[in-house]
């Protein structure tokens, strides 16, 4: 990491952490626990590229996370999430990070270079297992979390 980047990365991460903690409410212990889990996953996430901050952090059951994963590809595939192999009693944390990542992209329709992904989503188990869920672009990761997806389902 170059020296010149560290102050900016530190500032952004501090602001993100403050925003997340205040935003979820200091009495919302589950949300704080999710945030802590995602912060603890930062070293893992940094393997995929540069981390600018934690954007979203959410705890859910295995079933809800699996259904959310399956719904995101339902237009293309009849897909069963590998998370269904986990114990249904497990709690999973969905973490969305911002930054710049080295996950696979494809050339744009005109053949030119696609920009690197700016969003990375990991799933962290309650035993500390971290798996890559997806990568994409900030503002285009909808539904960003399982609860976002459930909310959109109930609204229709």
């Amino acid at each position: 990491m170059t020296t010149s980047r560290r102050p900016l990365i530190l500032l952004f991460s501090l602001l993100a952490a403050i925003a997340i903690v205040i935003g979820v409410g200091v009495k919302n212990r589950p949300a704080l626990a999710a945030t802590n889990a995602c912060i603890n996953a930062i070293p893992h996430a940094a393997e995929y590229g540069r981390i600018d901050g934690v954007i979203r952090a959410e705890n859910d059951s295995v079933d809800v996370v699996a259904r959310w994963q399956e719904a995101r590809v339902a237009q293309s595939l009849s897909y069963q999430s590998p998370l269904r192999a986990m114990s249904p009693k497990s709690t999973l944390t969905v973490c969305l990070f911002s930054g710049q990542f080295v996950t696979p992209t494809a050339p744009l329709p005109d053949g030119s270079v696609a920009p690197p992904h700016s969003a990375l989503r990991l799933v962290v188990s309650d035993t500390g297992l971290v798996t890559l869920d997806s990568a994409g672009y900030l503002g285009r990761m909808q539904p960003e979390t399982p609860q976002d997806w459930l909310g959109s389902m109930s609204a229709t």
Partner: protein
Amino acid sequence: MRRGPARRIWAVIAATAALVLAVPSPAAAGDTHIYSHGWETSLGRVYEGMSQVRPNTAVTNQPSDGCGDYFSGSPLYQTMWYHVAGGTDEDFFELGTGHQCNDTKRYYYWGLNNSHGQWIPLGEINGVTNGSTDHTFVIKKAYNGFSGWTVYWKIDGTTEDTYGANSSISNDLDVGLESYCSTCRMSGYYIHNLQYLQGGTWHPWAGRDGEQVNKPTMCGEWYFVDSRWAGETGNGIC
């Protein structure tokens, strides 16, 4: 605000700061992002599948990062993309070979991009061997009558993964090399027997419909209508 919650806030902030400072990021993570690729599009929305034959080619001068997770560090991807017509231009299926960790972590991978441009990995096979041996890579969709459509990812004749799928087929087949590593070098490798599937029958690519190469770091050129070279040689010559 009570003292207890305030302490928790500062603890989280301090933990974040400590982790961000302590975690080294790859020096050029994402700063280099280049391709060498060529595509087949001239027949329009008819492509039920695609096939390529190529070796898994060694990488030199690659940083020793990305030694744990797939799709991390300073990767090179020898790959192909099956763009699905009818969706957004970002809908595609992919099948390729990843090289990471000073080319000691080599793996086959497959996945898809959904209509929001989200890359979703579906599977990986670790322990791939580099060399001159050619391997056959296939992505195809097949209509199974009562069962509807199925998509297959196949390597050397073995179906590695399969799912029920919608009926959308491709109007854009693309093969090539994607790199996130400016120091890496990969000798030019030969991609050949490029074929598309139509009406259940395989046909050779016939168009040399387009190519894009980030020279001089990358190299790439058509050799024949159904074959091309690709590499990261540093001088634009394969």
